[in-house]
């Protein structure tokens, strides 16, 4: 047994509607190792986000099991962090009040946890902005605040659902780099859904390609760069990058 932090077994999802049923996910099996970054890409509307929602416990699955650290989970787990497309910061709360929202909701706003949050804020250069309101911060800082809000509950794995796609291109590249280094430093496993091929290559150790609806796993690619201190920015200059890009592009083929 390898140390899989997350295992998906035979996940199937069928949506019921008045005019019939739609199969969104068809028998998905996937293992994610501790500390690994895995991206999921696929044609739009194929059910990538549904898969994340199921893992997060926000949507129910029809069949299959989700294992976290070897234990089967049902519903919303306190050990899974979830980041959405928009930062979802509450504009009537200060940054500090925003980042402790998860602690507050879960009823674990202890001194120890608050100290942990304060350390994260200091470490990632938001401490001096903790009494500001979200509208006073740049897009990149807001995304970092949203990340700290998620990290505050000390998740074992972080799910990112198109988490950067609402940002403009430059901010997005910088935020991706920030998030990458923060998650690596904190040793957090990440499962990333994106429609952006370059983003998936630049961030991950493996890329999972899904087929069109009903989504099946078409292929899983290991992404390896022959370099030290890889970051989401410097790996883009490597020749392997375009090789991977071509490969994934062909696999995502609109005919396919």
């Amino acid at each position, binding site marked *: 047994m390898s140390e899989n932090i997350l295992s998906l077994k035979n996940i199937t999802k069928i949506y019921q509607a008045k005019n019939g049923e739609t199969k969104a996910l068809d028998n998905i099996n996937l293992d994610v190792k501790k500390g690994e970054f895995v991206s999921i890409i696929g044609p739009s509307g194929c059910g990538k986000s549904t898969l994340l929602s199921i893992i997060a416990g*926000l949507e129910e699955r029809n069949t299959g099991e989700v294992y976290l650290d070897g234990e089967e989970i049902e519903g*919303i787990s306190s050990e899974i*962090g979830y980041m959405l497309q*928009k930062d*979802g910061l*509450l504009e*009537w709360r200060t940054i500090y009040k925003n980042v402790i929202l998860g602690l*507050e*909701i*879960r009823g674990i706003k202890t001194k120890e946890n608050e100290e942990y949050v304060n350390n994260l804020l200091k470490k990632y250069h938001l401490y001096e902005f903790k009494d500001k309101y979200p509208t006073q911060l740049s897009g990149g800082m807001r995304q970092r605040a949203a990340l700290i809000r998620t990290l505050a509950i000390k998740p074992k794995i972080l799910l990112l659902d198109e988490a950067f796609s609402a940002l403009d291109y430059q901010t997005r590249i910088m935020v991706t780099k920030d998030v990458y280094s923060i998650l690596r430093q904190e040793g957090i496993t990440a499962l990333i859904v994106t429609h952006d091929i370059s983003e998936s290559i630049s961030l991950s150790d493996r890329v999972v390609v899904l087929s069109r609806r009903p989504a099946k796993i078409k292929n899983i690619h290991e992404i390896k760069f022959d370099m030290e201190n890889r970051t989401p920015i410097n790996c883009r200059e490597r020749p392997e990058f375009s090789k991977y890009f071509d490969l994934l592009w062909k696999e995502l083929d609109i005919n396919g």
Partner: protein
Amino acid sequence: MDNKNISEDRKKYLRKIRINKITVLITQIFVLIAFIILWEVLAEAKVINSFITSSPSRILDTFMNIKSNNLMMHLWVTAYETIIGFLAGTILGIIIAIIIWWSEFLSKVLEPFLVVLNSLPKTALGPIIIIWVGAGTPAIIVMAIAISLIVTVLDISNGFVNTDKEKIKMAKSFNATKWQLLTKIVIPSNISTFINTLKVNIGLSLVGVITGEFLVSKAGLGYLIVYGGQVFQLDLVMTSVIILGILAAIMYQSVVILEKIILREKK
């Protein structure tokens, strides 16, 4: 921007805005004064019949005799009924909206009833209300509630339903309970909905109270207007209408001030 070194262009721009604002204000005052003078002159010259139209000087006289015709008492009755009706209608409306938000089933069941009740002219309920609660202050307050309640429920429910889905999802990912969703996300997201509802309700409550006073006919500005009309004392009617206008303006302004306080606290 720094106040010390404002550019010439900016000064010009600021001055332009100020001049524009003053011009509008002066014109408004001028229109008002011109109207009053014209009214007085035409009445004096007997071009219009001041028995039917009253005149500014006669209104002023009525105003001066405020003690003898008990104006203050009637004003107080109307103000008091409006405030009670406004508070009750708003609070009750918010509570019902929360219940509807809470239960999707209930919201679906109630929808057609609310739509019909909303388009029903509530004044038609007047006689029923009087028979049920008696011809007095309670009937007038119930009338004010009847007029503002359904609109409150519909507006606030609508605001609640349209709360940012991403924020709800974010809170749910932390395993938020329904109560936490309501208090931490839905209600704070809808502060501006609440303020708009208050603004609409203050007007509607006044409509309800005046209609109620027309029907109940015991006291209040609405009663004075009806009474003045019946005995053909247009001075009294006009004075009451003007006082009513001032009362409405004061009540609306208090909501605006409340809004400013709330928004300042948020910043």
